[in-house]
């Protein structure tokens, strides 16, 4: 960390946002743990996903395919495809934070929706760095602790159906999808992919319909025009209190989410962001806005 005293560290808005996003995101590790054990993974298999794979959507995808009777290779494929966006985040964070040596290897592991959104939501390079590390490491620790709690809880519950855990999995996937389909076009893409999935369910082995939907989505993504940031929203929005304003602003700017898009950096790697985004963020509270406005 680049801070000098604990006082200045905790006074940083990026640190405070990083801590609150860590708690909010870490807590729902409990649902992953419980659903993973309900889908038939044992305790250490569940923990391996949270410790080593560490990307909520991909982890849920893996157990979702397994729960539906899909093969290991289908589960692995769905998980890997859902993780592609993390590679895009890696490019942005590399330009923004320029980590080197072991820091780069560690940065890669904690590159997820929420750490990226926390970092790119700040404009001061030191704040971006603090936000990334605090959110990334904080979520990593809490996500794993609560995964363990959930896995033990899931094992203790017995029959998953009696407790509605299959319904909980449905709700979890819809909860992950929801923040990404606020606009008409992403919602339409979701409907098309859902319909494509149902059409092929009777025709191919379990798990494969999800990969068919991935192909459909990939083709739509390749040929469509639209906001490049769509689909890259974090599951838990770090700047929630001004999320609405911010979303409005980013549509107006025709750019991406702060978590995405090439407009986020200048050649020097410093964040420039969208001016509209910045103005939307001023409502975030006096201290936040103040820090973010520093050139």
């Amino acid at each position, binding site marked *: 960390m680049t801070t000098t005293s604990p006082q200045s560290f905790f006074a940083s808005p990026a640190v405070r946002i990083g801590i609150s996003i860590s708690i909010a995101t870490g807590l729902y590790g409990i649902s992953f743990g419980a659903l993973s054990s309900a889908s038939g993974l044992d305790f250490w*298999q569940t923990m391996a996903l949270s410790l080593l794979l560490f990307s909520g959507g991909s982890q849920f995808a893996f157990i979702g395919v397994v729960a539906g009777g899909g093969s290991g290779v289908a589960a692995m494929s769905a998980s890997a495809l859902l993780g592609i966006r993390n590679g895009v985040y890696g490019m942005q964070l590399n330009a923004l934070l320029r980590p080197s040596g072991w820091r780069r290897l560690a940065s890669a592991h904690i590159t997820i929706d929420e750490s990226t959104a926390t970092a790119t939501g700040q404009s001061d390079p030191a704040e971006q760095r603090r936000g990334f590390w605090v959110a990334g490491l904080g979520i990593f620790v809490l996500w794993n602790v609560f995964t363990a709690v959930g896995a033990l809880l899931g094992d203790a519950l017995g029959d998953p159906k009696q*407790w*509605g855990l299959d319904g909980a999995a449905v709700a979890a*996937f819809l909860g992950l*999808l929801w923040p990404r389909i606020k606009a008409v076009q992403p919602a339409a*893409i979701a409907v098309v992919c859902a319909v*494509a999935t149902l059409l092929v*369910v*009777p025709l191919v082995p379990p798990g494969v319909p999800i990969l068919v939907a991935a192909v459909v989505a990939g083709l739509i993504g390749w040929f469509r025009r639209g906001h490049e940031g769509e689909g890259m929203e974090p599951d838990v929005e770090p700047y929630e209190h001004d999320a609405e304003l911010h979303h409005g602003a980013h549509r107006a700017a025709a750019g991406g989410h702060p978590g995405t898009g090439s407009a986020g950096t200048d050649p020097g790697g410093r964040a420039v962001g969208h001016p509209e985004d910045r103005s939307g963020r001023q409502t975030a509270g006096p201290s936040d806005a103040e820090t973010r406005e520093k050139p």
Partner: protein
Amino acid sequence: MNLWPWILLACVLAYATKLLGYLVPAKLMDNPRMSRVAGTLTIGLLASLTIVNAMGSGNAVVLDARLGALVAAAIALALRAPFLVVVIVGAAAAAGLRLLGWG
């Protein structure tokens, strides 16, 4: 079925994808098609996983208590409930409908 090899392979691929982002030349970032495909893939996969978990049963499409969970979760999300509450609402809806004898 032994899942371990697939779990470990998924972990390796996830980390490799993340690290690759840090290693590719910055020029690639100027291509908006990359993020558009990644974003659309995310939406499509999550939509597919949602519907398969709600209505899929092997090679059949069925209507059971899980559909009730889907509707209940959508209502909770529309009311801006936090993620964990949405998950609990989904579980309660499915369990409740089964108690009533459906699905």
